[in-house]
């Protein structure tokens, strides 16, 4: 039952990624070049809806949350590395799978490279952990948690701000 649910939610996610152009190399690269902000508008909308919805569920006590640990400076280094891969491939780990299934051979190469990168990381982990992951460990910190307030109080206005920004940002030209 859980497996079927996972497959269904994943398939819906993959379909939305495909239909909205998030798996398109051209769309992603032009978003990063700040020439076509469609993908930025899409991400802001997703986060805006997510912020409000997730914290509404939390306020009702029915959210299954999973907040990732904060560690510095490791996370900044990780984000910088990820960004280079994102710009070189034009895909992220999820959209590469979608693009591969749409028939794009370069996305297959990205997935294979990704499998190798993840494997190398797994074997380097003990060394990296000692150097970069174990210093500046703060645990699963949230913004509202560190202020000691109800998440929805912050998530509602921030979510609205994201949606407003998504609407206000210029779409830019099409894929060309």
């Amino acid at each position, binding site marked *: 039952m859980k497996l079927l649910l996972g497959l269904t939610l994943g398939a819906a996610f993959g379909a939305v990624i495909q239909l909205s152009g998030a798996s398109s190399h051209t769309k992603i690269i032009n978003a990063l070049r700040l020439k076509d902000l469609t993908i930025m508008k899409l991400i802001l909308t997703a986060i805006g809806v997510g912020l409000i919805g997730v914290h509404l569920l939390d306020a009702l006590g029915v959210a299954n*949350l999973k907040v990732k640990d904060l560690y510095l400076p490791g996370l900044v280094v990780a984000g910088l590395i990820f960004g280079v891969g994102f710009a070189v491939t034009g895909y992220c780990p999820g959209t590469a*799978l*979608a693009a591969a299934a749409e028939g794009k051979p370069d996305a297959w190469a990205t997935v294979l490279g990704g499998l190798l990168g993840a494997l190398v990381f797994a074997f380097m982990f003990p060394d990296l952990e000692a150097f970069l992951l174990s210093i500046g460990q703060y645990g699963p910190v949230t*913004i509202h948690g560190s202020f000691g307030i109800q998440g929805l109080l912050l998530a509602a206005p921030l979510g609205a701000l994201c949606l407003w920004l998504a*609407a206000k940002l210029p779409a830019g030209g099409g894929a060309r």
Partner: protein
Amino acid sequence: MTNGATHAVPVISWWAGGLGIGLILILAVALVQPIGVSTQYVVLDGVLLHRILPEVAAQSPYLVDTAAGWTLLNYEFFFVIGIPIGAFLASLATKRFSTRLVPLEWVRRFGPIPGRRLVWSFIGGFILLFGARFGGGCTSGHMISGVSQLAVSSLIFSAALFVSAILTARWLYGDWGKR
């Protein structure tokens, strides 16, 4: 050679796509847990390696932890397997399935040589997943799920990711100096 322009055109608008992803996240949080993708690359690695070289796989505590029980039969992996299935069906339904090898923007900048694009896609993929595992998440887990939960780690990772990706893209695609 390439027809990058036609299949790149989205069939649903940014707000419909964003709303769709937001609602999938809400449903996932209500029913199971936030969405995430990149961990499953490690899980697949672990299960495959354990099939071929079980002793080597067992040497990595990270693999042992992540690919718990050396099985793919769990919710998280099935969610990730669903992504290509959904994307495949969506591309077929909208007649946008395409085997273009070199993307349009890449051809303009680096030429139509397939080998070059494939090699760099592989290297880029390596960097991408190395960074994702280092940061403990990717665009789904950190940017969509994490920022929606107001996680400080996710906000920092996402900010660093965008700064680096925008600078790299502008440099790679030669936007400096010629506007």
